[in-house]
């Protein structure tokens, strides 16, 4: 504050005033609820009557007594471990195909992007029928291809999560657009130089394309990670956690605790555990990214 002129002070005051609506909104609707949920996680709180402090009671029950805690965390980790890489591969694959110079490319790009702007609930209802084991198009196609016993998908505990991942691939267009933008930013000069050095298609992809778009892959990886840890809507709409808890994802279990069982405190504790797990994964990915992400101009 020392040595500032009146006009400087007025300038920063106006700045704060302009930012005030956001600051108020952030504190009231973001910071406060987050801190409150931390407090509630140490309480017996039914969401209706005042919370009572019970210390680590919720966390103890979560880790030691709730058999669905590990089951649901496992289900969610399955989606993270298999769903995220699958959608990255498909998103990138489609982007590479759509980066070719073919007539009518704008139409193809629109078509592939379209699923990702469809509301999740609508998509879910549609896929409920596509994945239907007896009357669904996917199994009818598989039968035509000679698969005698196509999977039971959402009726079979072993196939329910793969079914949901398959559905996720259909929406890979969202990531595709970002890859496409990154692909078009790779300088043509690099490809020319690589071609002069005798690099073929595969070699160009591995040594030019891939390193140049790693920042975007990192972005999609982190976003995919966060999204998958919160995997909820599809299971809420399509399976309600069944069959036999195979799609009881962590968020769905949390939701049940909060809204069926009147256990907001317990659900808050679950939310904080999820936050810490997600944070740990995100930090690990960021740490590892030093080794594999290449920002233009850096030396590797």
């Amino acid at each position, binding site marked *: 504050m020392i040595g500032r002129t009146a006009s400087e002070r007025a300038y920063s005051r106006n700045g704060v005033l302009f930012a005030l609506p956001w600051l108020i909104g952030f504190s009231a609707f973001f910071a406060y609820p987050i801190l409150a949920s931390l407090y509630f996680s140490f309480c017996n709180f*039914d969401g209706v009557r005042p919370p009572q402090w019970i210390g680590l009671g919720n966390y103890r029950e979560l880790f030691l007594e709730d058999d669905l805690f590990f089951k649901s965390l496992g289900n969610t980790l399955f989606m993270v471990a298999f769903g995220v890489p699958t959608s990255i591969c498909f998103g990138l694959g489609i982007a590479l195909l759509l980066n070719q110079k073919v007539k009518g490319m704008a139409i193809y790009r629109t078509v592939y992007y379209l699923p990702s702007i469809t509301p999740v609930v609508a998509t879910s209802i549609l896929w409920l029928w596509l994945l239907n*084991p007896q009357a669904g198009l996917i199994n009818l196609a598989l039968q035509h291809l000679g698969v005698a016993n196509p999977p039971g998908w959402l009726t079979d505990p072993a196939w329910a999560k793969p079914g949901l991942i398959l559905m996720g691939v259909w929406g890979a267009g969202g990531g595709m657009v970002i890859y496409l933008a990154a692909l078009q930013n790779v300088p043509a000069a690099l490809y020319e130089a690589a071609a002069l050095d005798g690099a073929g298609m595969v070699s160009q992809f591995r040594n030019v394309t891939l390193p140049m778009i790693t920042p975007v892959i990192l972005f999609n990886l982190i976003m995919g990670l966060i999204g998958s840890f919160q995997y909820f809507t599809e299971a809420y709409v399509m399976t309600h956690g069944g069959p036999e808890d195979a799609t009881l994802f962590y968020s769905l279990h949390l939701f049940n605790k909060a809204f069926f069982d009147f256990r907001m405190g317990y659900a808050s504790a679950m939310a904080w555990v999820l936050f810490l797990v997600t944070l740990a994964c995100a930090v690990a990915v960021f740490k590892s990214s030093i080794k594999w992400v290449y920002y233009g101009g850096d030396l590797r």
Partner: protein
Amino acid sequence: MKRLTLWIGLIAIAGCGRVHTEGPVEVVYWTGWSGDEFKIQKQLVEKFNSTHPHIRVRIVCQFGNAGYEKVRIAIAGNATPDVMSTVWADELAGYAKRGVLLPLDELMARSGRSLEKEFTPGLRKSLRIDGKVYALAVTTNTSFIVYNKQIFRELGLDPDRPPRTVEELDRASDASVSMRKDGAIQRFGYVPNNLLTWVYVFGGRWYDPKADRVTANDPRNVAALKWMADYYRRFDSQAVRRFQSTFGNDATAQMPFFQGLISMWATGEWASAFLKRYAPDIEYGYFPLPIPKGGNPETTYCNGSVFVIPKASRHVREAWEFLNWLTSPEQVAYFCSKIGNVPPLLEVGDDPAFLSDPIMRFAVRLTRSEKAVGPPPIAIWPTYTREIARAEEAVLAGRRDPKVVLDNLQARMEKEYRRSKAELGQ
């Protein structure tokens, strides 16, 4: 000068909220009904408003499950409406025992209303919690089985003598099954589900009010689940599940019963309207859930949404005036006849308009049975019902042993019930 005008403007805006305007009292009513049912509720509200100039009811549609979940948040934030029907009978005990609902006994006595004299038995039991009435209803429901007489005739079964015992149901169902060449099921009889209700049919129960304890592993409960599991054991359980997954919604022409894919359909009073609309050519009959030896004949489980007045209501007197009017015979008769639901009022059930439709007449009879049950008055019931459904699935799909699964359910619910009672200070 500019600044002064601004201040005056701000004060004027702030003052608006506090100005007491003469005129009707506004009663906010949250309804869980949507679509056509919402439209009819709205008509009723308009009728009330035009005949009660000192009150203006504002109806707000809280569509879908989100509306029911919003209730908790509204109560926590002390921002409830004055009347709401966004509470399932299932949840009523949980709210009542938390002390957030207004007991209606005094208001009812003052208006000359009586739960015992006016309402059907199943509802009566579930609207009263710990000796006090916490809700009223404008609809009730029941479950029974509708069967296809043509299929019965083809199979050599007497189309005019539907199954009365579970053994007869088993025989009729098994006779109906036909398979495709690839092992998939083409037609089935009755696909058992809804353990919650079947337990009552088998003479079992989920909660013992005298001993105040949960009774998930009552031997009759185990017998009911065993009986259901046998259906899946007699056939390939994956095939049954695959077949079930093709079932369309009850409210569409894709419903398997309308397509002739099942010979028996566990349904409710709405069946009549749907059959007329989607399958007018099917020759059908209906029968109450068949019983085993020693079971409860004509058992039915009544759930459904109920009307409550939250304690936080700002206009209790006006809210009650509206609720009293809405649950009066004339309005209940209008609403139930329009949407094809069973009226919960005994007087309305006697109305010739309801008795003209045979299925409705049958449904009215079932809801009047003293055997009709409602949700037990325990706060954990919503959790309990979810866990019952999981246990059912673990046995039917996962082929786990019924006794083991229900013993496990018993242990978990006992613990949950203890925890809930301690939390509620009971």
